[in-house]
């Protein structure tokens, strides 16, 4: 019987009501009395030296309040990077400065050169057109391999080269991996591109800065997944504003997918300028601006080799990847191709030896950072593609080859430094075979053939590391932050509860799911509990929402705080009931003396805490509010198996997704409806990457895909209904809820399934020479592969 409330119930989302009636409160909906608007003049060349900026004509334009250039930010901090990588030789990565407005040089199309603050956006834009900017165009560095050649033009003159770092993992294994590959019975090699993507949350970024002269307090309203992180990075490192004078608010946020994690120049600008002009300053990105200023995702060029013994056991994996950093280091960029990617290269398999080499490269392109999955989709894609290719080369069934190599005993220490706590990969594969009706595939293939279409089946597995992460571990790996989270449970006198959580909800449904947990623990109605999030002045602290960490890390903090509440409430109840504390039980919102019918209700206890007339004041304080910080002891490891069936039109190369099935293991599930929705969304984005989306630059660094006319977003007609199952559940062993996280799975697991299916379709159609097609598998690429 499905539950109708508490943990495991598909409670309907309470946040929906405001969104469905137009009552959401997104950052662009905020307007402050006296506000000005800023328009950023952005570079239209990829690389150039700024020789002169003449603002005089623009300053005379109507409505102009003030014009800022890089000169106004000399001496102001650089936009910081939150993760330092140490390279193969023990040296720190090269870390260039990143000014709020360009100083000296522009380094990518979209780099902000000047900012016009005016009474209206239209006036700011008009005045920006009157700015006279003299830029000497320099040769642009776009191709990563060319960028690291000797003599290549440097993106940053003060760095020794365009190589940010050359990372090896596990460096000590390199010799053994090389040896295993040399002596293998079979080696499958695959070169591939993980295409550059733009996250494209439907809400463009917005920032509103406000400054209060009376108390010297700054407020920034921003479209962020982690307001406290912005407060720390911007306050401490860029503008030098102490936390107690800086409030960061992220109200309703219209999707993030990683790209709203990072601290951006526009946030620092609006905060800085609000004080400088002594009026609120608002910036709303247009979509075109978003394309050239939101951090992009993926963009890896990889060679992977998989070694097998004579019995088809995987013996070693070796990879070499070029990872694009873009022109500057975005907040978490260096960690994505390294610790979020290399540590997953064992996948679901017992491969004993793994070596991952990553060269991170600066180019004259928009910075690249985490996008849904961040490093783990790149790991999964190459591994699951090379396994498919190996199966074909060896003439074995790709599912059988995977099953044969599955890790089956847990905990399992991989050769890439992580320990999987739980999982059951055969079970998710069994479940997939069932829900995807794989036994019926050959009949469906014949039916497609009869229509003149090529049908293909692609299957793959994935594992990811979520719930980032033990702070002492990530500290060793170069993180410049801790990665715990926090929650305060505030019980009010009449028993209702506000839970202040550090996680931020921008589509994940925390406002519904988090109260389900507290309601279950206390035995009270979900409607008595509200979540407060997204405002640094209301919440103790929080590292925010990304990496499928909200319920695993922040949810655990909330559980710990609620446990403290229960402990204190039991003390109060024992006093009211004149019984020993050890005998008090809490059930269905009633405190009962075990074995008796003596009880007090939740509301009696909460009232006593705030009206402590009959209260053990000598033992405990009045009030009922508790805070907990939770620092996980390990990552969580969701896993699953995905299947995609495609039809390819042999005349046009057009690929249609006919069926898509996902069997996931997320451990325990709080709200199945929300979890299913998260998987749907991830699959939608994964199909987008596999078939449609491509962020491309020409050789001069011009962004060719800078609007929805040129960047193909998945539409409703590009996808079918999905079959999603998460009934295989091996609970996480180290967090109190046994949860693993579900936000990224769909985007990680789906691209290889699609491409495996496309290759299978072509192979079955007789195109035996087609062993790989790079994403996106657009009609032209597929047609070219068939006719090449």
């Amino acid at each position, binding site marked *: 019987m499905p539950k109708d409330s508490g943990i495991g119930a598909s409670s309907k989302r309470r946040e929906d009501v405001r969104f*469905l009636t137009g009552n959401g409160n997104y950052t662009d909906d905020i307007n402050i009395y006296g506000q000005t608007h800023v328009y950023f003049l952005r570079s239209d060349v990829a690389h150039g030296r700024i020789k002169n900026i003449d603002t005089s004509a623009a300053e005379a334009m109507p409505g102009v309040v003030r014009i800022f250039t890089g000169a106004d930010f000399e001496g102001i901090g650089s936009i910081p990077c939150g993760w330092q990588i140490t390279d193969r030789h023990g040296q720190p990565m090269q870390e260039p400065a990143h000014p709020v407005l360009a100083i000296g040089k522009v380094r990518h199309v979209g780099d902000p050169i000047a900012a016009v603050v005016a009474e209206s956006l239209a006036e700011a834009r008009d005045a920006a057109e009157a700015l006279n900017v003299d830029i000497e165009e320099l040769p642009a560095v776009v191709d990563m391999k060319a960028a690291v050649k000797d003599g290549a033009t440097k993106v940053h003159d003060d760095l020794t080269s365009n190589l940010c770092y050359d990372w090896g993992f596990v460096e000590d294994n390199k010799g053994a991996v090389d040896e295993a590959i040399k002596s293998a019975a079979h080696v499958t090699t695959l070169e591939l591109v993980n295409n550059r993507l733009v996250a494209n949350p439907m809400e463009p970024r917005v920032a509103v800065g406000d400054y209060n002269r009376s108390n010297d307090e700054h407020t920034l309203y921003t479209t962020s997944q982690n307001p406290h992180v912005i407060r720390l990075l911007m306050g401490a490192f860029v503008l030098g504003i102490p936390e107690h004078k800086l409030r960061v608010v992220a109200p309703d946020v*219209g999707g993030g997918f990683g790209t709203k994690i990072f601290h951006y120049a526009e946030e620092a600008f609006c905060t800085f300028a609000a004080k400088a002009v002594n009026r609120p300053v608002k910036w709303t990105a247009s979509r*075109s601006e978003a394309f050239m200023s939101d951090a992009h995702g993926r963009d890896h060029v990889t060679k992977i080799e998989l070694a097998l013994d004579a019995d088809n056991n995987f013996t070693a994996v070796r990879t070499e990847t070029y990872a694009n950093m873009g022109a500057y280091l975005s907040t978490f960029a260096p960690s994505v191709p390294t610790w979020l990617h290399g540590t997953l290269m064992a996948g679901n398999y017992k491969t004993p030896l793994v070596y991952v080499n990553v060269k991170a490269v600066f180019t004259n392109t928009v910075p690249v950072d985490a996008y849904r999955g961040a490093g783990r989709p790149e790991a999964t894609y190459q591994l699951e593609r090379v396994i498919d290719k190996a199966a074909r080369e060896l003439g074995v069934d790709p599912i059988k080859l995977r099953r044969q190599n599955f890790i089956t005993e847990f905990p399992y220490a991989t050769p890439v430094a992580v320990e999987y706590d739980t999982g059951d990969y055969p079970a998710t594969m069994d479940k997939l075979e069932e829900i995807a009706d794989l036994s019926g595939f050959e009949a469906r293939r014949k039916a497609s053939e009869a229509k003149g279409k090529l049908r293909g089946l692609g299957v793959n597995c994935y594992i990811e590391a979520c719930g980032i992460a033990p702070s002492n571990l990530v500290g060793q790996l170069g993180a410049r932050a801790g990665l715990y989270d926090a929650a305060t449970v505030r019980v009010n006198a009449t028993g209702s509860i506000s839970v202040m959580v550090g996680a931020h909800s*921008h589509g994940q449904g925390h406002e519904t799911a988090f109260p389900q947990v507290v309601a279950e623990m206390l035995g009270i109605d979900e409607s008595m509990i509200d979540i407060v999030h997204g405002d640094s002045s209301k919440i103790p602290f929080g590292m925010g929402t990304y990496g499928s960490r909200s319920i695993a890390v922040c949810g655990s903090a909330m559980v710990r705080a609620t446990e403290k509440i229960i402990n204190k409430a039991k003390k109060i109840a024992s006093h009211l009931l004149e019984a020993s504390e050890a005998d008090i039980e809490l059930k269905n919102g009633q405190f009962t003396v075990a074995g008796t019918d003596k009880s007090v209700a939740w509301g009696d206890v909460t009232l006593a805490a705030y009206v402590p007339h009959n209260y053990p004041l000598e033992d405990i304080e009045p009030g009922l509010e508790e805070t907990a910080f939770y620092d996980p002891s390990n990552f969580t490891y969701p896993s699953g198996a995905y299947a995609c069936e495609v039809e390819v039109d042999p005349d046009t190369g057009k690929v249609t997704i006919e069926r898509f099935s996902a069997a996931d293991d997320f451990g325990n599930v709080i709200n199945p409806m929300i979890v299913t929705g*998260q998987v749907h969304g991830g699959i939608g984005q994964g199909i987008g990457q596999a078939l449609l989306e491509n962020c491309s630059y020409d050789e001069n660094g011009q962004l060719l895909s800078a609007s929805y006319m040129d960047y193909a977003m998945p539409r*409703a007609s590009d996808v079918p209904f999905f079959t999603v199952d998460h009934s295989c559940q091996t609970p996480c062993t180290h967090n109190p809820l046994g949860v693993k996280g579900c936000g990224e799975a769909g985007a990680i697991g789906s691209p290889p399934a699609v491409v495996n299916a496309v290759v299978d379709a072509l192979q079955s159609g007789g195109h035996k020479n087609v062993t790989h097609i790079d994403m996106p598998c657009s009609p032209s690429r597929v047609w070219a592969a068939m006719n090449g």
Partner: protein
Amino acid sequence: MAKVSMTVNGKTVSGEVEGRTLLVDFLRSDLRLTGTHVGCDTSQCGACTVHVDGIAVKSCTMLAAEADGAHVATIEGQAAADGTLNALQQAFQDHHGLQCGFCTPGMVMAAADLLKNNPKPSEAEVRHHLEGNICRCTGYHNIVKAIMAASGQDVSQIAAE
């Protein structure tokens, strides 16, 4: 500046606008009806969809001045006066047809337009009709399901929650 007046969600409103002011900006900035969203600058995302004289229109493609004298309906006018969601809105909640909510007003307005002209659309018809509305969160599964459910069709056979 020119004076415009129109009926929005049944109320007569008027304002002074520049010639270049878009209907969406008039709704959002002048009338403070911020439920209608802006997701792009090339008329492709549909976040700004409203009804003008009963027809779904992307309000970023229309000047406020062009809507002078028109009857405009926005997401704010869809629920009953007491706040009760209409059948379509309710179906979106029941079937989890929204996540971040940013595309949602446009989706609801586009879907209402479909159901008015095609009371029992097929899956393919729903998907085709949503061609001009982008959602980045849901993979469209539950949006399509919600719209079909709102049209009174049995969606229980469509996979999962």
